[in-house]
Every structure is written in C-alpha cells, then in structure tokens.
C-alpha cells in the first residue's frame, strides 16, 4: 500500500454567477480512504467535487472562497494556467455520464499520455493494458482494442473511463455518481474496483445510492441545501445520525 494524498477543505464556499451553491464547508479526507458525498439533488455535491480538481474554473463567473489543501498545499493559491493544468493531471475525475471519445479504445487510453509524454508505442500500450487490467475490463475488450469505444456497454464504458483516468497515475480520484447510468452487476464491479483503487489512492465519490455508500465508503459527508450538515466515519453516519434531517434522508423519508 502506497500512502496517498490527504485532502483538507477549510471554510469552502462556492459561488456561481448570481447564486451560492455551497457554504462554509470544512472536512478532511484521509489518505487511502473512500469518502462519499451524499445528499439530495442540488445540494452542491458536484460543485464541491469539481472544485477539487478546479474544473469549475472553466465556468465563467465561478468563485471559491476558503481553501482546499492537498497534503498541505493550498491548490487555490496559484491560478496560473500551468499550475491548474498540472493540478488536473494529478487528479483523476470520472463523470456521471461515461465519456469515452468517439475513437478506438486504445486511442482513448493514449489520450492523457500523449498530452504529457513523447509517444512510445510499446510503453503506451503496456501501460494501457495494465490499467485496463486493473480496471477489470481488459478481458472484455482485449480482442477489440482498435475498435470504437462507443461499441462498449455503459458499464464497460465507465470502467474504460476509470482505466483512462488512471493513465497519469493520479493519487486522487474523484467519482461523480459513476454508477447512475449502469446496471447492478456493473455497479458491483465498479465498487470492487474502487476498493482496489484505494490501496494506492484517495477516493471521493458522489452517490445517491445509500446502499452503495454503506458498502464502500469509509467516511461520509451529508449535504443539504448548500451546507454540510454532518460528516464522519461511515459507520457513525449510518448508525447514529445526529440530525433529524440526515436520519430522514438515510431512512428514505425524503
């Protein structure tokens, strides 16, 4: 097991042009853990997740107050293009909608590498195959690496995206409802994968699925209407919720 990164949020508030999506959130994500963000729709989970690799910088008018630290380094201290681009390559993100590019599986895998390394067919291929294996999809695609990634099923596409996100060896991986578009069997495969990934990485996952959070999360933060209501060990959150609102949420009374 490799020690991964610690992520610390200090008084984070996120504003879009005209509205505030998240207020005053502080929490710490320990290394090599799976941290789940839960809460009803529109409470700011995605906003917070995308702030951790500064994807929200792409949205005109977005502003973040407070600080987000990775191993003590405030990632909002420097806003130069170079720093932000470098930050993003250090953090993998998987979106709700599996998003392979409309090209071959192998070319999808090469995309991140090509961007930052000189093309070396043998090395690239080896690395692609290793990651596809780690993402537990290699056996399903090994005979069609040169075929379109769009010929894959939803669950396969999502695992391909996870494999692709691992190409730059990120120490942190962010998942935004990775299983919302796929069936239960594929979901279980991805959960297994997440448990595997946390051996060397720190993982944050946004999920609407309470059972999923119970199955895989080490820590959970519950958000409601733009505020973090409770956060802590998954066990505590699910067995001893401190607020009525969280109690109602996990018991499905919403």
């Amino acid at each position, binding site marked *: 097991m490799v020690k991964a990164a610690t992520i610390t949020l200090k008084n984070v508030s996120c504003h879009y042009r005209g509205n505030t999506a998240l207020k005053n959130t502080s929490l710490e994500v320990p290394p090599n853990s799976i941290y789940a963000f839960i809460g009803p729709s529109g409470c700011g989970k995605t906003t917070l997740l995308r702030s951790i690799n500064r994807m929200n910088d792409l949205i005109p008018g977005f502003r973040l107050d407070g600080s987000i630290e990775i191993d003590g380094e405030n990632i909002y201290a420097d806003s130069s*293009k170079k720093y932000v*681009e470098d930050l993003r390559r250090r953090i993998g993100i998987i979106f709700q909608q599996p*998003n392979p590019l409309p090209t071959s599986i192998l*070319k999808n895998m090469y995309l991140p590498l090509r961007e930052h390394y000189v093309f070396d067919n043998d090395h690239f291929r080896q690395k692609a195959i290793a990651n596809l294996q780690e993402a537990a999809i290699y056996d399903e695609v090994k005979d069609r690496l040169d075929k379109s990634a769009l010929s894959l099923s939803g669950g396969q596409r999502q695992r391909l995206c996870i494999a692709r996100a691992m190409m730059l060896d990120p120490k942190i991986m962010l998942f935004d409802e990775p299983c919302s578009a796929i069936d239960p069997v594929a979901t279980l495969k991805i959960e297994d994968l997440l448990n595997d990934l946390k051996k060397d990485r720190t993982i944050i996952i946004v999920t609407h699925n309470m059972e999923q959070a119970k199955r895989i999360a080490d820590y959970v933060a519950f958000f409601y209407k733009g505020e973090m209501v409770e956060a802590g060990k998954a066990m505590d959150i699910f067995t001893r919720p401190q607020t009525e609102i969280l109690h109602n949420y996990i018991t499905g009374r919403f």
Partner: protein
Amino acid sequence: MYSIQHRSQKRAESLPKYLIYLFSAISIAVIFLIFIFVFSKAWPVIKNSGLSLITSSGFDRQVQEGFYSSDAEPLLHYGLLGLVSGTLVTTLIALLFAGLIGVGAAVIICEYSNRKISGVLIAIVRLLASVPSVVFGLIGILTVVPLIEKLFVNTDMQIKYLDHFQMSGRNLLAAAIVLTFMIAPTVISLTVDAIRSVSDIYKETGYAFGMSKFRVIAKIILPGARSGILAGLILGAGRGIGEAIAVSMVCGGLGFLPIPSLGFINFLAPTLPLAAAIINKSEAIGSFSVESALFSCGAILLLIGAFLSIGAKAVEKRMRKKDGLEN
C-alpha cells in the same frame, strides 16, 4: 375496429411517402438526362480527340481555329489539359486557403469570442455566403488584381517571361484568392455548426487531463468536428470547380499549363479553368466545333464533380475506420 383504423392510418401515411419516392425518382432521372445531354453534345469532340482531350493542351488556339472552321468540316480535335489543370490548381489552392481561414475563423467564433461578437461574425459570414459571384468578381478586379500587379508584377518580369505568357494582375493567384473568399463562408458555417455539436462532455474530458484550451481545440474539438469540416470543404470544392463568372473576370483567360521549372511564377500566369472557359467562349457557341468543345468542358466538370463526391466518401470512411468506428 382496430384493423379499420390501422388501414386508414396506413393509407394516410403512405401518400406522402410515395410522393417523396416520386420526387426522388424525378431528380435522379433529371440528373441522368443532364449527363446524357451534355455527353451527347460533347461526343463529337470526345470521340475525335480521344484521350488527348485531357492529356494535351492547346485549347486557346484550337478554339479560334474551331470558330472559323466550317460546320461541314468542323475542327474537332481539342486539348483541354491546360483547362483541367486550371480548374484543379485554382480550386486546390483556394481550398487550402479557405480551409485554413475557415477553420481558424470558426474556432475564433466558437471558442474565442463572446456571444455578442460571435453573433455579429456569423451574420457577416452568412452575408458573405449570399453575395452573388459577379460581385466577388468585380471586387476581385477592383482590389485583388491591382494589388497583385503592385506587389508582384513589373516591366522587368513581364519582359523576362514574355516567351511564356503575358504577365498581368489577372492570373492564377487572383483567381485562387477570389475563389478563397467565395468558399471560405461555406467552410466557416459548416465548421461552426460542427464545432458547436461537439459535446461539452468531450471538451471536459480533455481539460480534466490537464490539456490547455489550445490542445483541447486541436485534439478533441477539431477531430470531433471533422466530418463537418470535410463537408464544408467538399461543398467548397464543388463551388470552386463550378465557379465561372467571378473566376473568368480575374483569371486572365488563357489556358496556360504550369511549367514546373518556373516555380512560383506559375501563380502569376494567366489561367482558364473549365467553367470560366465556358463563360469566356460562350459567344462563339454558334460554331458547331466550339459548341462541342465547350460541352466537353462541361462533361469533364461533371466527371470531376462525381469523382469528388466519391473520393470524399472514401476519405471519410477511411478516417472512421482508423478510429475503429467502422469496419
């Protein structure tokens, strides 16, 4: 009850369907008739000239001789190589320029300007696309031709190349430039549409891997917009090959065959693309010889057009295959 409703519904639907079939059949028939008409008119020259119709040059002289030949004993041997090369070279150069300008402009419109500015730019592009070709020709005569004369043509040069041709501002370069401005709006519009249809999801994929905006455009947006760009270039090529009026106004009117050893000077030589030749010599169409010669120009144009669309399909298919999108 159910079946009655079903049948009447079916009849109501099938009427428009048959109308569509009918109109498609009519358009196909018309295309065939055009081919047959053009080729039958061109046949005397094609039959007499054989392959040398497109492998030899000499049209400029032949068309004069042909005009004075009697209809009883018409001159039917023509060499159109100079015209074919004029068509292909002007179109290719214009396509290259228009491709670069068009894709560049589309990227600026879509990615580097705010909504207001891009709206204005698109309005200008649409306007440009609707300007009649004769106006392009006129502007070419008034601006491009004098500019080229000023920049490249002087008496020394004219004397130096007098053996080959009479150098003036009306030349291959002028034709290509005028054509560029006629083709570019089409390329821009289609590229803009194509770029806008590339999903944000794909762009975010690039940014998430630490790509710069420029790299996202080069590696994700433009490849994603590829088929739209290709469609723009094909339409542009079609327009370039078929454009007659504007080109005939600035091309110099002589089917000069480029001489490799002259290099860049070839761009300053007069040219006469097939379509411009038809316009240029149309007064002489009363002569049987010239008529058949001009129809053979038309026949070659039709063939180039047909090859163009087949070729484009093949290119697209090849690219899709490379990406694994097709077997």
